[in-house]
């Protein structure tokens, strides 16, 4: 879609896009190309000279069992967060859609965690499951479970998953509710007249109609759990114990800022860029499809 009525003033047009483009070049594209450049070079131990090493940094990464383990950790973490976020979001949205008269009030009470900073979400959950004072840790003790996420990697993983999902359920709830409310009532009524009960209607009519929204939420939640959960990991576990919760984004930060392994950190950045680019492309292809159907 294009405008028929436009203005002719090239200089002004360039001035208008200049701020956005300048920031994009200086703080996005230039650093990204620096990462690409560094990822194929190796510095000497004193940081004085660097030489071209091809894909050696990448090869070194994929030979490193701890990097592959970090990949696996990220996949487990993202899968768990995504399943919780989509499952609970759909459940609450389906229920709120049923009692539509109260939906707006309920919506307010369900969406506020989205505004909470990831770090704050992490600290809230840390307080509930702190081995010394946590109320849930205490309750678990009562039924014979020793909770200490500082020592037990699985418990640490569970804790970061819960904190990450808690913050994001609101998001999928909102989108599922909007999708459910846009389904024409006549379709559901027709099925009801033909004798389909609520469960059958949900499976054969409602769910197929909200499938595009589900797919969109799947991609967005994956991006969230891959990239935006850094503060939660940093606040609760710092990647520990014994790297049990060291997701890829956390590792880039650790290797770059703490361990100062520039080549490796840059190679990891490039891998992450490829992942986020792939997810963005998938997301936008789907959006194009949705626009055409409307």
């Amino acid at each position, binding site marked *: 879609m294009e405008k028929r009525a436009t203005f002719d003033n090239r200089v002004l*047009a360039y001035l208008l896009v200049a701020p956005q483009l300048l920031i994009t070049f200086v703080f996005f594209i230039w650093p990204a190309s620096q990462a690409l450049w560094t990822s194929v070079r190796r510095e000497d131990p004193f940081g004085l000279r660097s030489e071209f090493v091809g894909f050696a940094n990448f090869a070194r990464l994929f030979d490193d069992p701890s990097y592959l383990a970090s990949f696996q950790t990220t996949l487990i973490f993202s899968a768990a967060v995504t399943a919780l976020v989509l499952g609970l979001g759909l459940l609450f949205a389906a229920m709120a859609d049923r009692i539509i008269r109260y939906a707006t009030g309920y919506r307010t009470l369900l969406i506020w965690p989205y505004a909470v900073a990831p770090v704050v979400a992490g600290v809230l959950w840390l307080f509930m499951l702190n081995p010394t004072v946590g109320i849930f840790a205490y309750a678990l003790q009562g039924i014979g479970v020793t909770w200490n996420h500082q020592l037990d990697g699985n418990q640490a993983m569970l804790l970061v998953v819960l904190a990450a999902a808690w913050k994001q359920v609101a998001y999928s709830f909102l989108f599922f509710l909007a999708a459910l409310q846009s389904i024409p009532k006549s379709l559901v009524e027709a099925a009801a007249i033909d004798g389909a009960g609520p469960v059958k209607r949900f499976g054969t009519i409602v769910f197929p109609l909200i499938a595009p929204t589900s797919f969109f939420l799947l991609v967005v939640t994956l991006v969230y759990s891959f990239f935006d959960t850094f503060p939660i990991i940093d606040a609760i576990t710092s990647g520990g114990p014994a790297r049990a919760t060291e997701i890829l984004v956390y590792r880039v930060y650790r290797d770059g800022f703490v361990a100062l392994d520039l080549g490796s950190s840059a190679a990891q950045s490039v891998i992450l860029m490829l992942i986020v680019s792939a997810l963005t492309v998938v997301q936008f292809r789907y959006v194009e499809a949705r626009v055409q159907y409307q």
Partner: protein
Amino acid sequence: MIERTRVLDWIAHLTVLVGIALLAFPLWLAFVASTHPPEALFKAPVPIWPGDRFFENYHAVLVRGVDSVGGAPISVMLANSLIMAVAIAVGKIVVSLLSAFAIVYFRFPFRMLCFWTIFLTLMLPVEVRILPTYQVTADLGLLNSYTGLVLPIIASATATFLLRQFFLTVPDELAEAARIDGAGPMKFFWDILLPLSRVNIAALFVIMFIFGWNQYLWPLLITTGDQMTTIVMGIKRMATVADSQPVWHEVMAVTCLALLPPVVIVVAMQRWFVKGLIETEK
């Protein structure tokens, strides 16, 4: 709904209420903890009903300061967060308004190249290019400054797309009429386009304010002095003190203060928030 099944309605109410309670429970505990004296939070079980120290505790953290973060009063951190959040939100909206206006209402060489360059930023979140972006910012001498906190993240592909989408729906006749009446592009932008965009700007402001307030990794990298600490960073430092238990009643008071502004904005401006959230993702 179609059939009046009481049981199903009750199940629906019950499920949603359980969900609300589950989501609110961490916040409730935090608030309760922030109203108790420190002794109440040394060991489990912690209280689940509010205590009587609300005013003392909040007054203490806001005015006197917290030892584990260099004794700086929390009000300084709140002010830093507010400055950063408002500057990021306003900056993103201004920059995006201008570039969306140029892309929709002007014809110029490399127009689509500009568009795709802006699009590219979606694929480069801070988290994946932290080290080189830090270096650029350091080379420009922007460490430990508000400019450094704000400027590198005010490019916004999502805001530009949302506004472009909206500008495309504005009737062509308006621009034609403005031109016939002899109004230049900037007069058209200021007097016609901007007033029409009010709702979209409000929606973007809510989303971007939350984004700005909740920034963590970027401020963590580029600020070192206590004077530039934001509240979100301060909480992390208070909650993970080395070799000792955090001072929970203070941590929780600061936590409540940190989440109050964005939560109030989302609840009070819910209509714009929902609109902004759903439309920026399209």
